[in-house]
């Protein structure tokens, strides 16, 4: 495995360069995981992409660098402490920094010679390939896919010039990737929605969720989706509820601050039993916080958001494949139980790219069956939209499709959907809605277990830290110390507790690993199971925890 970081200012084109390099690595047979660290500005500042690649599947970033490409001095000083002994630093001849492992290239000159002064980053791509001992034969076709024809030839030449200008340092061995996709968490979630048969998406731009809006906008025609940029998040969610009411599978995407504005409507979905999928792509709060960074601090918030009580489902997607399948499943669950389903992701997962096996549309397709909203009665007097049923699920008809009129109401209502103030009906309706939770529990997916079955210590985590936790567990269990295991939750509310009860009873200690400062998963576990975590590994600086940091955390806990 190799780890290379490309750092520079916003506007240096790091995103484009990383995107091209990643695709070349994919086409050359490598597995890779690539993350983004961007500041909240359009030009200047300091951004980087961190690409880890090799001949094994990989699902987290690591801290130690084998190579560092820097567009300015600041980037070098910010990252030099992460350089491994044999690491190289690649930069332009003009930068007045120097050291043992510096490889300096006259990028400007080479780019100019290649025919386009703006192709400097392509020169570096060529150089990087050479440095890692990777053939540049995939470069041309990738450049062709990614760049406009006008500048293609110059960039192909630039890559070649870069390749020629550097010497081999490492001999990266490619893997056996076949039918392997390279995609971001955001792409995966959006395509999961497509698999879930999404018909309507509305949103207000907000990092890091805006990529979803852009994805659906670009494909609304091909996939038959009504997509609208709303005037605010309140409009976005109320639009989605209006569309869903007519039978269109509907979704909104946002981040915590936008979710906050959707809270009132969440309760409306709850009482009116209108299916909806809400994606909260988390970033560090409170409030505007660190808008382009990552955190998992909306869990407590989303499981109890909105006044009053109603069943809901919260799924914290774990990785890119999970984002795909769970998003499709979210539509299925929302429709089946007529509840809001909240998908928690975060900036790390949404913006990071990974190589995974081709996603299985067949597997996902069972979630995508079109809404089965049939006329259930031929005359209005017989149709009970909110029929009191054993499992709490009432017949859901679509207006216009049903011979009967269909009502939706934010007030408490009777079986027909007519407003009521009756105490008896109120109790019956609350109980009916609450009964849905029992059915939801039968559908819950238990967390993944990683590690040693005889572990003494059990780590618990949720969502995007799964990859790092898994890798940390693997590394630790090879070290011959106390064995550890880990449960990584994706379905998180209602909390599936079977494996938790099973494993916790066998270990001496439970430790929560979370990307927040108060241990929100541990709180939820206490509330639902009375099981305490007696140690915590918490990170809340807006940067994602790595396997290395988890191992450090264990050391600090004397585990």
């Amino acid at each position, binding site marked *: 495995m190799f780890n290379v970081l490309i750092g520079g200012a916003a506007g240096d084109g790091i995103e484009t360069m990383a995107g091209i390099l990643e695709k070349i690595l994919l086409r050359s047979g490598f597995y890779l995981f690539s993350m983004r660290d961007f500041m909240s500005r359009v030009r200047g500042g300091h951004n980087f992409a961190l690409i880890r690649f090799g001949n094994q599947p990989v699902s987290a970033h690591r801290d130690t660098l084998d190579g560092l490409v820097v567009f300015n001095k600041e980037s070098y000083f910010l990252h030099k402490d992460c350089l491994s002994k044999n690491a190289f630093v690649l930069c332009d001849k003009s930068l007045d920094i120097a050291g043992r492992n510096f490889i300096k290239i006259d990028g400007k000159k080479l780019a100019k010679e290649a025919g386009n002064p703006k192709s400097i980053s392509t020169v570096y791509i060529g150089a990087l390939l050479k440095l890692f001992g990777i053939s540049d034969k995939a470069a041309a076709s990738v450049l062709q896919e990614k760049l406009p024809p006008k500048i293609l030839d110059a960039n192909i030449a630039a890559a070649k010039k870069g390749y020629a200008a550097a010497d081999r340092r490492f001999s990266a061995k490619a893997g056996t990737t076949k039918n392997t996709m390279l995609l971001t968490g955001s792409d995966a979630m959006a395509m999961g929605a497509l698999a879930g048969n999404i018909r309507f998406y509305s949103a207000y731009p907000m990092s890091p969720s805006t990529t979803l809006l852009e994805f659906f906008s670009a494909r609304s025609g091909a996939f*038959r989706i009504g997509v609208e940029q709303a005037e605010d998040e309140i409009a976005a969610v109320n639009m989605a509820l209006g*569309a869903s009411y007519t039978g269109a599978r509907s979704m909104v995407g946002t981040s915590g601050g936008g979710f906050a504005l959707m809270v009132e409507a969440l309760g409306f979905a709850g009482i009116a039993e209108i299916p909806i999928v809400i994606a909260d792509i988390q970033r560090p709060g409170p409030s505007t916080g660190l808008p382009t960074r990552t955190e998992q601090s909306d869990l407590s918030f989303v499981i109890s958001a909105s006044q009053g009580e109603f069943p809901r489902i919260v799924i914290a997607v774990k990785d890119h494949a999970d984002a795909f399948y769970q998003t499709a499943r979210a539509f299925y669950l929302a429709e089946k139980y007529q509840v809001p389903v909240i998908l928690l992701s975060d900036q790390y997962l949404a913006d990071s790219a990974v190589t995974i096996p081709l996603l299985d549309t067949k597997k996902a397709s069972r979630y995508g069956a079109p809404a089965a909203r049939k006329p259930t009665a031929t005359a209005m007097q017989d149709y009970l939209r909110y029929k009191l049923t054993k499992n709490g699920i009432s017949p859901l008809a679509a207006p216009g499709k049903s011979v009967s009129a269909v009502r939706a109401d934010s007030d408490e209502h009777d079986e027909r959907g007519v407003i009521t103030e009756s105490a008896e009906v109120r109790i019956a309706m609350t109980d009916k809605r609450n009964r849905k939770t029992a059915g939801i529990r039968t559908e819950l997916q238990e967390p993944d277990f990683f590690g040693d079955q005889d572990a003494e210590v059990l780590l618990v985590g949720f969502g995007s830290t799964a990859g790092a936790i898994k890798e940390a567990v693997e590394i630790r269990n090879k070290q011959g110390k106390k064995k550890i295991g880990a449960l990584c939750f994706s379905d998180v509310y209602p909390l599936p507790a079977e494996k938790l009860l099973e494993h916790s009873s066998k270990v001496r200690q439970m430790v929560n690993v979370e990307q927040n400062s108060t241990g929100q998963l541990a709180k939820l576990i206490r509330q639902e199971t009375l099981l305490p975590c007696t140690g915590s590994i918490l990170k809340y600086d807006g940067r994602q925890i790595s396997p290395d940091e988890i191992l450090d955390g264990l050391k600090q806990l004397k585990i």
Partner: protein
Amino acid sequence: MKNNTFYSTETAWCPGCGNFAILETLVSVLNSLKKEPREILLVGGIGQAAKLNQYVNANGFSGLHGRALPAAVAAKIANESLTVIVNTGDGDSYGEGGNHFLHNIRRNADITHFVHNNQIYGLTKGQPSPTSAACSDLPSAACNINSPLNPLLLALAAGATFVARSFSGNEAHLARIMKAAVAHKGYALVDILQPCISFNKVNTFAYYNERVYELEKDYKPSNREKAMQRCTEWGKKIPIGIFYQAKAPTFHERRPEIFNGTPLVDQAAKAGELPKLLKTFL
């Protein structure tokens, strides 16, 4: 009880409330449309006016206070075969819902918006609404210490393509305007003067009756500047009628790549479209 008539049921309004005439007129207009109840969707927010859809035999969506428009527009987007009509209050439409009012005018989706403008918050028992008379003009228990909004002028400024005013005390006029609004292709606003007998002691039936008059027979609603002038007349005389109407592409017409006549809700992505997309990530 036939299911193709829009009968109305018992209401929770105060006897004598201006809402009754709006309800009756709407029911008669609906009956004249020759559609079935299932083809009509009535949407409301929260408030006395917003309760209307509970009293009519048709699809009914009673959403959140101030949020009727986004839900109504999206329902129309998802199923264009529905005739979508919003009935809600002045507080709901211009207060809590003010931002949606502005931006849904810009969308020009083919829906109708009837605002029961009683110049007061009725359901919450008499606070001033954005259209309540200014205290400097007509001091009262619930007058507006800030300057009131003129919703018609605002709609015109935001680019609305159908802007009208009517009065619940003139059912014939109201029926005519309602029909025209429903027939209009695009977003149609009708601000309906509606006395609240319980809380608005200023803008009463008598107050409106004295002042309201119909726009001249030869008034041409095609001139926006003229419309802006006329809709600001408010004092001894209050004109009612269609101030402005214009043709403009609707929400659906602006997006021909998505809307092809078949409601979205009845469509699906072409088989094989997703696998094809996935392959682009290889």
